C-alpha cells in the first residue's frame, strides 16, 4: 500500500466482507439472536462460514493456517462488521487472542493454538480490566508461584465473549502493587479449569461480556505468555491492535448510522416537505459528513502504522480510537434525533447502532482515555 488508499487485495477483501455481512449477518440477525435470547449470542454456523471466508485467519500467518493479511485488511472486515452489527467472537478470538499468541507465544503455544483459532474450533477471550473504566495497569489479581506453576486469584470484568471462551488470557500480578506497570504477567487459563467461574453479562448492545472470577486456579509454568513480569508492554501492543479494530468497527457503525439518517431525511415529510430540505438539519448533516471523512483517515492511518510497525503506531491508534469514539457518538445521537420519535422505537434499527457504539467506545478506553494518552505521548 502506498499512501492512504487501499491496494487491490485489500479492496477485494473489503468487498467480500461487505457482501458476506450484508447477506449472511445483517442487522436482522442480531435482532433475532436477541429476541430468541440465544445463550451464546452468536451463530456457530455463521462462525464456520467466517472461517471459510478467511476472515478469522486474517491476522494469522500462513504456516498456522491463516492468510497473514495484516491489520489494514482486518480493519476492512471490521468496518463491515460495524455496518451490519454482526455478532461473532471475531474480535475476542481472531484479533485479541491471535495477536497475543502471534506477538508473544512460544513456538509450542503457537503450534497448539493458532491453527485452532484459524479453523474456528477454539474461542478465546482476554480478561484484563478490573474496574468499570479501562485501567490496564490497575491489577489486583495475583498469580503466586507454587510448585511448578502458578495459582491465580482475582476478579475480572467486561471480559468480551468470556461466556463462550474455551481459553482465557488473564493479566495477573506476579510482583508489585495495583497501579504498577511492572510485575504483570499474562497467563493462558482453561475455561474449564477448577476455580474459574464465568458470569455472563448481557450488555446494552445485546452482545455479551462476562465477570470472570479466579479462585485459586492452578496453571502450569508453560501457561505464561511471553516473560513473567513483563506482560504490560505486550498487553499494550495487543490493546493497540484491539483499539484499531474497535475504531474500524465504529467507523462502520458511524457510516451506516449516517447513511440511514440521510436516507430518512430524504424520505420523511413534515410540514409538506421532506425534512432534508430544512437547512438546520442540512448543516448538521454536512458537519457530520466532514467528521466522518476525518474518521476514515485516522482509522486507515492507524491500521497502516500497525502494518508498517511504525514507531508512532500507539499514538496513531489513540488518535484513531479517540476520534472514532467521538464521531460515532455524534453520528448515533444525531441519528436518533433526526429520526425523531420513530428512532426511539425498538422497531427501527437506528437505536441498535447507538446501543452498540457506546460499549465499543468504552472498551479499552474511551475518547477521554485516548485523548489523555495521545497528549501524554505528544509530550504534554
Amino acid at each position, binding site marked *: 500500500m502506498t499512501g492512504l488508499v487501499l491496494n487491490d487485495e485489500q479492496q477485494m477483501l473489503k468487498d467480500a466482507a461487505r457482501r458476506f455481512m450484508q447477506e449472511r449477518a445483517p442487522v436482522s440477525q442480531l435482532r433475532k439472536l436477541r429476541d430468541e435470547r440465544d445463550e451464546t449470542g452468536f451463530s456457530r454456523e455463521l462462525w464456520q462460514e467466517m472461517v471459510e471466508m478467511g476472515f478469522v485467519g486474517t491476522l494469522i500467518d500462513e504456516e498456522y493456517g491463516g492468510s497473514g493479511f495484516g491489520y489494514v485488511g482486518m480493519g476492512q472486515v471490521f468496518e463491515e462488521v460495524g455496518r451490519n452489527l454482526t455478532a461473532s467472537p471475531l474480535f475476542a478470538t481472531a484479533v485479541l487472542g491471535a495477536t497475543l499468541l502471534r506477538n508473544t507465544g512460544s513456538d509450542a503455544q503457537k503450534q497448539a493454538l493458532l491453527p485452532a483459532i484459524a479453523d474456528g474450533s477454539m474461542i478465546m477471550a482476554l480478561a484484563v480490566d478490573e474496574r*468499570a473504566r479501562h485501567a490496564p495497569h490497575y491489577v489486583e489479581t495475583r498469580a503466586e508461584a507454587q510448585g511448578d506453576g502458578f495459582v491465580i486469584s482475582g476478579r475480572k470484568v467486561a471480559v468480551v465473549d468470556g461466556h463462550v471462551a474455551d481459553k482465557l488470557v488473564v493479566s495477573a500480578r506476579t510482583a508489585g502493587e495495583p497501579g504498577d506497570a511492572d510485575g504483570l504477567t499474562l497467563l493462558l487459563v482453561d475455561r474449564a479449569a477448577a476455580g474459574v467461574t464465568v458470569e455472563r*453479562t448481557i450488555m*446494552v448492545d445485546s452482545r455479551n461480556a462476562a465477570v470472570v472470577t479466579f479462585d485459586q486456579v492452578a496453571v502450569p509454568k508453560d501457561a505464561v505468555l511471553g516473560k513473567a513480569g513483563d506482560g504490560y508492554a505486550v498487553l499494550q501492543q495487543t490493546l493497540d491492535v484491539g483499539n484499531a479494530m474497535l475504531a474500524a468497527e465504529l467507523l462502520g457503525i458511524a457510516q451506516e448510522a449516517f447513511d440511514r439518517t440521510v436516507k430518512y431525511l430524504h424520505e*420523511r415529510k*413534515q*410540514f409538506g416537505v421532506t425534512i432534508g430540505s430544512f437547512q438546520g438539519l442540512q448543516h448538521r448533516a454536512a458537519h457530520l459528513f466532514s467528521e466522518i471523512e476525518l474518521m476514515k483517515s485516522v482509522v486507515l492511518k492507524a491500521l497502516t502504522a500497525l502494518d508498517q510497525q511504525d514507531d508512532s503506531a500507539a499514538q496513531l491508534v489513540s488518535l484513531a480510537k479517540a476520534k472514532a469514539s467521538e464521531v460515532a457518538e455524534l453520528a448515533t445521537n444525531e441519528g*436518533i434525533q433526526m429520526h425523531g420519535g420513530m428512532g426511539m422505537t*425498538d422497531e427501527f434499527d437506528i*437505536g*441498535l447502532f447507538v446501543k452498540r457504539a457506546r460499549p465499543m467506545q468504552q472498551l479499552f478506553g474511551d475518547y477521554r482515555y485516548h485523548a489523555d494518552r495521545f497528549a501524554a505521548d505528544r509530550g504534554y
Partner: protein
Amino acid sequence: MSDLEAFRRETRAWLEENCPQSMRSPVMSDKDQCWGGRNWTFQSEDQRLWLERMAEKGWTAPDWPSEYGGGGLSREQVKVLRQEMARIRARPPLHSFGVWMIGPAILKFGSEELKRQHLPPIVRGEIRWCQGYSEPNAGSDLAGLQTRAEDKGDHFIVNGQKIWTSYADKADWMFCLVRTNPDVKKQLGISLVLFDMATPGVSTRPIKLISGSSPFCETFLENVRVEKNQVVGEVDQGWTIAKYLLTHEREMIGGFGRTAAGQKTLPQQAVEALGVEQGRLADGMLRGDIARWELDAKAFEFTAERVVDEAKAGQGVGNASAMLKYYGTELNKRRQELLMAIHGSDAMVWEGEAWNEGALARQWLRSKGNSIEGGTSEVQLNVIARNILGLR
C-alpha cells in the same frame, strides 16, 4: 395571626392527622405513584386512604373551584399546602393527566356541562385520562394531523391513529385532537374531543422503546362515536387549546434531569467512582467535561428560578418555555452521557439484579427522547427564532 397563618396551622394539623405514615417518604419507583382510575389497584391500604382523604377536601386539585370538587384555595394557600406537604415529605396523593392537563383546559375553555361531568371524577381519582395528540405521519408537524371526525348531526364518527399516547392502555377517557374540517388552513379545522376508551372501535397497543418497555401506546380509532357535547370549546377551534396544553407539557419536560432530593449528584457519583487526587477528580479529561456540564446545569437551574421570579414580579419577556424545554432536555442528554462514562462497563449492562436491571443504560437511552417528545429541539429553536427574535 393572619388568615394565612391560621390556614397553615389548620393544614399542618390536618396533614399530621390524615397522612398515613407510609405515605411520608419520597416516591422511589413507578409503583409508588398513584394514578387512580377505574382499573387502579392500590399498592396499599394507606395509598387508598391518602387519596380518598385528600380528594374529600378537594386537595388533589387544590386551586380548582370547590363547586367542581376542587379545593377552592387561593394561590397563597396552595403554596402553603405544598410547603406543609413537603415538610412531612408527603407523597402526591394522585398523579393525573386529568389534574395536570385536561382539567385546566376544561376549566378554561369547556362548557358548564363538561365541567360538571368531568372535573369531580378527576378530583376523586376515579377517571384516568390520556392524551391523543401525535400521529405517525405528523410528528413535529402536529397541526398536520389526519384523524378525521365526520359530522353525523348529533355526533361525530372518528377514524384514525394516534401514537405516543402515554398509558392509553390503562386510561379510561381520552382527550383527543381530530380534524373536523379538512377544507381550511390546517390549524383551523381541528377540534379537541373527549371520549371513553371503552367506546367500540378504540384499541391500543403498547410501544417498545430502545430503552425497553414504556408507557407509550399506539391507539387505533375505527368508527368511534363521539357525542357533540364532548367537544371542548368550539368545533374547529381546538388548536388554541392544544397550544395552551403543549406549553404546559413543554415546561414539565424541560425540568427533566435535575437531581432529585436524596439522589447523589453527578459529581458526587464521579468522585465515588474515580476518586480524588490533590483535591481534583482523578481523571482530568472527565473532570473538565463534568465541570462544563455542571456550570451549564447550575446556570440553567438559576434561569428556571429567574423565570419564575420574573413572572411573579410581572416582568420577563414571557416565551421562556421553548428555551427551557430546549436547553433542559439537551442538558439531560449530556448528563446521561456523562453518567455512562463515569460508570463505564457497569453502565453497559442490560439485565441482572446486580446491575439494577440495566437502569443506567435504560435511563440514558430514554433521555434521547426528551429532545423529541413535547416538540423537538428543532421545533423549540424555530419557536425562539420566530416568536422572540422575529426571524422568518
